[in-house]
């Protein structure tokens, strides 16, 4: 199984524009992403679960994810579970405000003092959850949950490039699109898998095709009965990838 990017925690904020609590979620998420746990966290815009691609919908399987919601409707947690995977943890601003005894939150454009305190408290709570999730072992990207026996698919080798995914508009899970039976299929994590197979010196052979299929199947559903065609398409993609990489080496 290939080593994929360094373990990070996903943050999904409801961002509810109608309420001050929604503004709190957005600003708290930003605090975690940019100040409290930069490098350990990534985010995605909630609507991308529907408006984006397969890589976006794989987000909560790829990263143990904390949903930050403004109110008891829990749009972020419920939508994440419905379209991507069950969040590993959840924070609700109204609960945090009640726990801290913060007064009414107001000012969806410019938060009042209670709102600003709620931002800090929510961010602090989310950052603590990030630490807990990073400490836990055994995140399975196949099931999108922690498991007892850890499949060693998480920690990248020292010096490996970290995922560049800290942007709000896209999950940052690398995807490739290839043709299978004349249809375009988008596969999450394929670029990384190809890179690692090439680094391992895997030959263009049937055995490699089977291994590619197995690795890709960890992160993507492979339709029953289509395995051989996927394996052939993956091997072809690997051949193209190796050719391109070799070309870079020669022209450099």
């Amino acid at each position, binding site marked *: 199984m290939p080593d994929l990017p360094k373990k990070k925690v996903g943050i999904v904020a409801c961002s509810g524009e*109608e*309420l001050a609590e929604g503004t709190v979620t957005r600003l708290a998420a930003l605090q975690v992403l940019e100040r409290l746990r930069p490098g350990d966290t990534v985010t995605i815009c909630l609507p991308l*679960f*529907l408006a984006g691609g397969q890589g976006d919908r794989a987000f909560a399987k790829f990263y143990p994810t904390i949903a930050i919601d403004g109110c008891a409707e829990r749009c972020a947690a419920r939508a994440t579970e419905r379209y991507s995977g069950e969040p590993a943890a959840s924070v609700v601003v109204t609960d945090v405000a009640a726990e801290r005894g913060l007064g009414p939150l107001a000012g969806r454009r410019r938060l009042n003092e209670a709102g600003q305190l709620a931002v800090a408290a929510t961010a602090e709570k989310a950052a603590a959850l990030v630490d807990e999730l990073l400490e836990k072992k055994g995140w399975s990207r196949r099931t999108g949950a922690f498991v007892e026996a850890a499949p060693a698919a998480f920690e990248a080798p020292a010096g490996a490039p970290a995922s560049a995914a800290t942007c*709000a508009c896209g999950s940052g899970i690398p995807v490739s699109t290839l043709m299978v039976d004349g249809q375009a299929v988008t596969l999450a994590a394929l670029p990384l898998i190809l890179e690692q197979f090439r680094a391992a010196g895997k030959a263009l052979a049937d055995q490699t095709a089977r291994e590619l299929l197995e690795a890709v199947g960890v992160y993507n559903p492979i339709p029953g009965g289509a395995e051989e065609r996927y394996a052939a398409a993956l091997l072809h993609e690997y051949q193209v990838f190796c050719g391109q990489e070799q070309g870079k080496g020669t022209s450099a």
Partner: protein
Amino acid sequence: MSPNARRVVVVPCSGIGKTYGSVSREAAYVITEELRPETTALVALSQLVLGDPAARAVVAGAPTITIDGCQLACASKMVRESGGAVAREFAVLEVYRRHRALKPRGIAELNEGGLRLAEALADEAAAVADALTADGQG
């Protein structure tokens, strides 16, 4: 406008990590809170993502203005997927191209350029809302 008349719905993008997302949201607030509070209403994108029946009914029953922060156009896509008709689709980048002097910066807090760009966008959207309201009354 009578209290029972339908309002023009405004749906901004939910982007939290980019300046243009912040501009889209600020513009939506300027329209619905300052420029046309009586004739427009804000709907949160997260409710549409979840398929909230009330939010879906609102966008399905009224003309909608969407304001997107990037080319993924989540707001426009979600309104359409929710059964709504997008009467006018704004993209912050397009508006910025018409107002090059208003360079937006900042996410949690927009700079002066970002705030003024949001106002410019809101002015355009308010004119669209007026036209839609007039159509609805005609």
